[in-house]
């Protein structure tokens, strides 16, 4: 109503804050609608819905062949904020060549001091937004290889990341003898992990502990015998092999624990609580421990959902659960069954908010204040996004540091589909007639981010997190939304389903994705996808020129052949109008686009352009001149650099709707400012 200094505006804001939730609360937390059922649209092809339904009905089928399995015990020291761990890693060489080395990722060493790669990189706008104030690290004290004569290899472990003496997150372990393909190696491990304060979703805040990347983790050996190892960069996430995890957690009694996998036993002795978690076919293990968590147990489909949230967040928990009830079957119908019996959802307390919004296998973290207004969908959006990662990261375990678009981009695409299926155009917010969609927000993110390079590049190559966010999350999501809009959403969804099935428990590359897309969408679509993803190509359609002239004779004129610009001459009666419309394409992408012409007589003519040339000239002769042109009337091309040059009208009316709202807003401002 007025400026910040005006008390009446505060009162109004308070009233609004009281009224708006009350109005919306009247609806309560609505039961989510059923996930959208996609119709069969093409003869001979099964619909996604039927595939998904049958997949959902199928018994929990599959599991990954274990490559890196851990049996660990972890004891939390709640005062030193450290974890003492010990156990074994059984690793199997699944590549085609022998290897005489291993790489271990010791991610917590990223927080060891200010000189690590993580901390010396520009990450003022990274995921957690700041450097840790309390350092953390991981120190190995035992590294014995059973199959190598019980040799302790600790002294052989190289002290720092290859080529980077200041970083110790990526460590090479030379082996006394090569490990042959198919051969297994068991490493006995013991270590101490000191947690930093919450940074990059890991660490401690007061008495809240989120324990991620806390154990020595073997890197992934690719099929060709090369190690996919990397230091921990603030823009990057992780990459590992699947395996079976058996982890016993030892925490003070009174701590409420959430962890990857299913709890198979729990006991209390001597003031300590011991919990055993089993998780098969996963590639990471994270857990949290906090005494104040409240729990909410629910069953969604065949999955046991464990919600952990701070006191006072009951409504947030219900909203989270409602989002899960919709999105879990939604994703299952598209990308395959969620194969695990449990899903743990952690809502960190507000003082540890930067632990929120992260994905681990069978465990996700969400966030938001207890008073999150109901018109904002932030809680639901982050829940849907993180749940989507159970597929695009969890089951389809791509190399996140190398190709972040394969998990974040594809998952953001899936998130827009799910959130808009759930909420429609109000998937991001819905306040007093101002409805924003997740797609519109991603487009805003795309426009705000720089666009001068490919989307498909390593996380560390992005100049900051804003650029990564704009390109990897938002632009990638819109590239795929555009491909779906232009070449068929059902076809694209079938391609994604095929990709998700083919690479379930796999480690696909961008080429695998493109190949799958090509099978469903064809080469033109993939050429555009490749250009958008790998070359940084873009497109901007615009109405360049429109002219209409009245014919003065009755002889040949340009035909009303709207299938192309070069038809045979045809006769036209006098008094008719010749109209010439030029639509221009800038950028390298050649996306087919619809064009709509409207004449003064109200006739609406639709025209398809394959986007092949730079300009498309449309000639129209009719009783009335063309008075309006609209390129891409359905807003299919969401990566169009500017939507505002996609239309033309002969007469432009005054912007009355804007006048109305602006006048109202400024009148209220004046009322508030009034002395």
């Amino acid at each position: 109503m007025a400026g910040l200094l005006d008390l009446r505006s505060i009162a109004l804001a308070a009233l609004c804050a009281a009224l708006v939730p009350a109005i919306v609360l009247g609806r309560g937390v609505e039961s989510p609608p059923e996930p959208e059922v996609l119709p069969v649209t093409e003869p001979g092809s099964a619909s996604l819905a039927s595939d998904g339904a049958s997949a959902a009905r199928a018994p929990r089928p599959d599991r990954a062949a274990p490559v890196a399995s851990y049996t660990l015990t972890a004891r939390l020291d709640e005062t030193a904020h450290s974890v003492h761990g010990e156990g074994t890693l059984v690793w199997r060489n699944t590549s085609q060549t022998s290897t005489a080395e291993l790489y271990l990722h010791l991610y917590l060493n990223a927080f060891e001091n200010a000189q690590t790669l993580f901390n010396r990189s520009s990450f003022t706008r990274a995921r957690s937004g700041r450097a840790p104030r309390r350092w953390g690290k991981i120190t190995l004290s035992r590294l014995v290889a059973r199959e190598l004569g019980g040799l302790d290899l600790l002294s052989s472990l190289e002290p720092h990341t290859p080529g980077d003496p200041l970083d110790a997150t990526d460590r090479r372990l030379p082996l006394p003898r090569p490990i042959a393909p198919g051969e297994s190696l068991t490493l006995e491990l013991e270590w101490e992990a000191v947690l930093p304060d919450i940074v990059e979703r890991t660490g401690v805040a007061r008495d809240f502990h989120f324990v991620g990347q806390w154990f020595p983790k073997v890197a992934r050996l690719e099929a060709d015998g090369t190690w996919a190892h990397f230091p921990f960069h603030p823009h990057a996430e992780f990459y590992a092999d699947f395996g079976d995890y058996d982890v016993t957690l030892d925490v003070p009694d009174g701590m409420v624990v959430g962890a990857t996998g299913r709890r198979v036993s729990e006991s209390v002795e001597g003031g300590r609580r011991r919990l055993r978690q089993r998780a098969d076919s996963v590639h990471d293990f994270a857990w949290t421990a906090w005494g104040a968590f409240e729990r909410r147990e629910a069953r969604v489909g065949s999955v046991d959902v464990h919600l952990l949230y701070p006191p006072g967040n009951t409504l947030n928990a219900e909203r989270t659960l409602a989002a899960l009830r919709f999105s879990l079957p939604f994703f299952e119908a598209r990308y395959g069954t969620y194969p695990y019996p449990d899903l743990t959802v952690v809502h960190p307390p507000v003082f540890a908010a930067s632990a929120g919004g992260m994905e681990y296998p069978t465990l996700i973290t969400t966030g938001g204040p207890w008073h999150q207004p109901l018109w904002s969908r932030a809680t639901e959006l982050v829940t849907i996004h993180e749940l989507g990662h159970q597929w695009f990261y969890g089951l389809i375990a791509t190399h996140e540091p190398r190709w972040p678009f394969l998990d974040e981009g594809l998952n953001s695409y899936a998130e827009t589909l799910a959130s808009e299926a759930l909420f429609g155009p109000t998937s991001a917010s819905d306040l007093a007639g101002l409805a924003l969609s997740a797609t519109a927000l991603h487009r805003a993110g795309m426009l705000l981010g720089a666009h001068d390079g490919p989307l498909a590049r390593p996380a560390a190559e992005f100049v900051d997190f804003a650029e990564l966010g704009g390109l990897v999350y938002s632009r990638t999501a819109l590239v795929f939304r555009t491909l779906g809009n232009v070449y068929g959403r059902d076809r694209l969804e079938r391609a994604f389903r095929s990709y998700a099935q083919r690479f379930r428990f796999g480690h696909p590359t961008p080429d695998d994705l493109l190949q799958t897309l090509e099978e469903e969408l064809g080469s033109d679509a993939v050429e555009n996808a490749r250009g958008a993803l790998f070359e940084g190509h873009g497109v901007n359609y615009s109405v360049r020129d429109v002219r209409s002239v009245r014919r003065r004779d009755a002889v040949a004129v340009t035909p009303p052949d709207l299938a192309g610009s070069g038809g045979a001459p045809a006769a036209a009666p006098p008094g008719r109008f010749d109209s010439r419309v030029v639509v221009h394409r800038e950028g390298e992408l050649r996306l087919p686009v619809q064009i709509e012409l409207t004449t003064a007589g109200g006739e609406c003519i639709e025209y398809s352009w394959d986007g092949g040339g730079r300009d498309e000239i449309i000639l129209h002769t009719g009783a009335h001149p063309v008075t309006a042109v609209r390129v891409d009337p359905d807003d299919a091309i969401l990566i169009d650099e500017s939507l505002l040059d996609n239309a033309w009208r002969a007469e432009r009316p005054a912007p009355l709707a804007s006048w109305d709202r602006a006048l109202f807003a400024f009148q209220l401002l004046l009322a508030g400012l009034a002395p």
Partner: protein
Amino acid sequence: MSPVPNVFASSPQRARVLAAIGVTYLTRLLVAAIASYPLIASIDASGIGQFDASDGKLFEPGGLYLLEVLLHERDEWIALVAPTAVLLVAGSLAGVAPERLLLRALAGAPGATESSPRAVECSAGRALPRLVLLALATWVARALLVFATVALASTARSYFASARDERLPSIAASVAVLVGLCGGVLLSVVRDRAAIEITLAGATPLDAIERALGLLRRRGLGLVARFTGWTLAGFAAVLAGAFAASAFDVSTRRGAAMMAAAVLHQLAIVAQIALRTTWLSSAIAATSPPGEPRATERAQADAFL
């Protein structure tokens, strides 16, 4: 507590008050139109007017084009913030003239006159600068109050920061904001009474504030209750107008819907002004008890003249 005077006691009186309300509304409308013109011109220049729904497209569900225009025009809009703010402040200061007119019209109501017509007429030349001075002083006081409220809220929040129930810090901060709002109410009541003293009794700003504070001490509860009631009613009118107008879909540029939304918005503004007028009328009527203070005020006013 003084009864609320009947501001529509006679037809000429009613006409004067309605005219003053009209002038207040039109002044605000004019200033708002001038202040919003660059913004509207920017929206128009963005190209949104080329679409079939014209700028109604900005209000399409999903907000795709709203964000599109916002992002394309953001540099221009950022550049507009400072001049628009100056214009609004100046326009707000100019608002003291119609307010004086309104107060004088209200003072004509039976039981509402505080000073002699001669005093009012003769002080007219000095009243406007004094009202402007009062406005400036009010803004400074509000700024200090907001600062104090924010500091108090922040302290209250941090005091409960270690509470496990996340609602406690928010509730503590809300209580602090409530205290600040109470201060704001008192400030507004004092300000409005001081404006009445300046306009109707020809008082200087300091004297006017002193008298207003004196009246607040003696009859504070009633004044605060009435101010709060009428002001909340004004807020309710504005909210009702905003929500009712939002029910009309203007995104497809349907003329009737757009007109209805605009009418509802403007009705809400008029209602808010009318409700404030009722409060001012009530504040004018809230004179001191018969006897010494009133006589003193009259004497001071006459002496001033």
